[in-house]
């Protein structure tokens, strides 16, 4: 955490802030708690009362059983999601770091046009169908790689990363170059280690992006065995909203899942991130450049 944590502040000030933060935290927590409790509540109670803050008539794991053991292929989809997220994050971070580093060097000839080349793609996109045809032409249809490669890089993250890289003092790199290092060495041995908060952040965002993504599978993949977990979950959460414009045209045959099942679905989808995040948090806690330039 950045330097200055409470240093030189008075206890009443800190107490006030703490209370404020606790209130904000509570405002976040209560609906989360509702979701969590509903996932553990017996179905009858949910039918009768809707979502609860705390279940009152006992706990039940039925909703989780329905999701995890049900015939929907959830367990396999979970595995697909894990693979896609792991592979995707590693490949994506590599590609993004590789370009963010040169982008952070304002003296590089041609930097600006290349930046515009990248940035332009953020604003103008062909859309769903054209991208589909490209993915088809490249031969990725119905392959798990279609969940990874088309979303390999986000220019947004590249910009953020290069911004972080740029804030590293030039003197650090210069001393390495004087000692004979090439750019790759500078990147991997100096810049990356010093950018751990940035890497952790972008890595987390990237991983979450892959983990939460559900739409590409719908259009690129026909084999249900290759669906990631979020797509299966999304199918379970369908039919919650019907625009009145549609009226009586599209029908659902199947009973939509109850609030309890939906809540369990959310918990299952979110839990991995919640478990992973604490490992990344520590990178947000230290200032990392103490004494780096002293020598």
């Amino acid at each position, binding site marked *: 955490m950045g330097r200055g944590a409470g240093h030189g502040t008075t206890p009443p000030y800190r107490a006030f802030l703490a209370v404020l933060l606790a209130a904000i935290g509570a405002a976040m927590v209560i609906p989360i708690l509702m979701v969590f409790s509903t996932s553990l509540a017996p179905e009858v109670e949910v039918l009768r009362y809707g979502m609860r803050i705390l279940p009152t008539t006992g706990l039940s794991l039925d909703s989780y059983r329905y999701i995890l053991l049900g015939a929907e292929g959830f367990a396999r989809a979970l595995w697909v999601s894990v693979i896609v997220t792991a592979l995707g994050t590693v490949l994506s971070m590599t590609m993004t770091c590789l370009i963010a580093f040169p982008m952070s060097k304002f003296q590089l000839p041609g930097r600006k046009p290349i930046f515009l080349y990248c940035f332009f793609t953020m604003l103008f996109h062909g859309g769903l169908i054209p991208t589909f045809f490209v993915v088809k032409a490249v031969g990725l249809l119905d392959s798990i790689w279609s969940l990874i490669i088309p979303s390999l890089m986000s220019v947004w993250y590249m910009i953020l990363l290069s911004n972080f890289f740029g804030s590293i003092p030039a003197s650090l790199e210069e001393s390495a170059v004087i000692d004979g290092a090439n750019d790759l060495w500078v990147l991997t041995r100096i810049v990356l280690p010093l950018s751990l908060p940035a890497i952790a952040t972008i890595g987390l965002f990237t991983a979450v992006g892959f983990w939460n993504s559900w739409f590409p599978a719908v259009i690129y993949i026909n084999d249900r065995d290759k669906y990631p977990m979020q797509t299966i979950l999304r199918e379970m959460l369908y039919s919650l909203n019907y625009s009145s414009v549609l009226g*009586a045209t599209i*029908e659902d045959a199947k009973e939509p899942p109850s609030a309890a099942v939906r809540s369990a679905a959310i918990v299952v989808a979110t839990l991995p991130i919640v478990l992973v995040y604490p490992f990344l948090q520590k990178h947000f806690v230290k200032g990392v450049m103490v004494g780096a330039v002293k020598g």
Partner: protein
Amino acid sequence: MKTALKMAVAVLALMTAATGAYAKGSGEQAATKPMDVYYADTSRTAASGDAAVLDFINRKFNVNFHYTQFPSESAAAKFTTMIASGSNLDFFLGWYADWTNPRSIDRAREQGLIVPLDDLLAKYGANLLKDVDAKYWDLARNGGKIWFVPNVQFKSKRFMYVRQDWLEKIGYAKHPATLEEFDGMLRDLKAKNPGKQPNFYPLIGENFTYLYLEFLGSFVETAGNFVDKDGALKPEYFHPNYKRYLETLQKWYADGLINPDQPGIVRQQEREQIEKGQAGVWTTWFGDTRLAQLQKTDPGAKVTFMKAPVGPSGTGGAQSVGIFSGGGQVIMSHCSPEKQAKIIQMLDWFQTAEGQMFQWYGIKGQHWVMQGDFVGLPAGAEPGKLLYNTFYIVNGGNMYAHFIESVATDAGTRESRMAATSGAYPSIDPADYMLPYDWSKTASADRLTDLDTMKTQMLTEIMTGKKPVSYFDEWLEKWKSAGGAQYLKDLDSQYRKIKK
């Protein structure tokens, strides 16, 4: 010894003959491996069917049947990309009617993606040709050829349900028949509150459109476009009774008879209201009594159909069956002749009574049994598991014919259930027969969404009392200038073309 040999030879001969007959009968099937058949039903966005049902289909037709399920909000995107890539799609339920889905049948035909079906039907589609009405086959023709197998269902799939146990509690032995009686029943329900709800609003619709259409028929006999006294086809706004309908809606809402969240409500919320026992009368999709869920929290609950009340139009809501749904099965042109034949054979079997029951309820004896003239669950099955069309995988025609068996909510006879739900108010909306008209090519096409938005907003504002009923006249003028005038022209011109 000789007799034993003679007997052995005779038995052998019999067996050979039998095997031969068997082999001939299932000729190609027994000899070849199962054919992969890919299907997409664009009318439904849910997983349906279970392993046993799929297995049955695979064995019966010697296929590997794959059906694509569309996650609801992405259904259009998924379907579009499947057509664009031609992959994993052999036949699908395409839509013809313009205001529901993209005109996938027309587009597919124009691009040469689907095949004409005349020869196949002649060879393998006897049941289809016999059962599906000739006028629907007419609609399926273009350039002298048949391009799809018409999908015949309900015209209006909404029905009204009522908490029968509550009605009995407050002394309604008979269902109300007229609008006045219905109004009285709503008020009685609200006043007496048999469910002992803290805030009770008797009437709710799955969404606003459903509610609107349910009672429109009591005022406008077609519950939609109607032919006025000059022989012109006009939307319901121009009907003499229309403003009376607006007044009725407004009064019901103001008196707390309609759930106040109605304008923005969606299906899931409506279902939750019903299941919590906060609705007395509701209009929803026909398969949706919510009875199983209701009985978990309120074991004494009883739900029955209720016919829409007869109003100034002399009739009630337009609920009718056996009407062309606006869609049909098409076969993609990349399929081999054998596969095309196989598909028609499947559709033809699904058209039979046996096929219908199978589609709706699953395998007889395993998923359902007949109990009198109800369809019921076999002994030991999980209660509440029998749902309409849980199992239908292929949306074959004439699907409505057998749902009535499983409406195990009314102690009345089959006839009374039929009367309450179908045929009572046959659809006479002339616009039903204008489906071949391509709205996207009309001058008013760009403004259809606006007109629809205007309509919903006007209805909401008047019903909730934000605007008086007199506002309607001013609104109609705005509607005309926002594209309504052109819409009237287009509507009438196509009607005159088709009117015979």
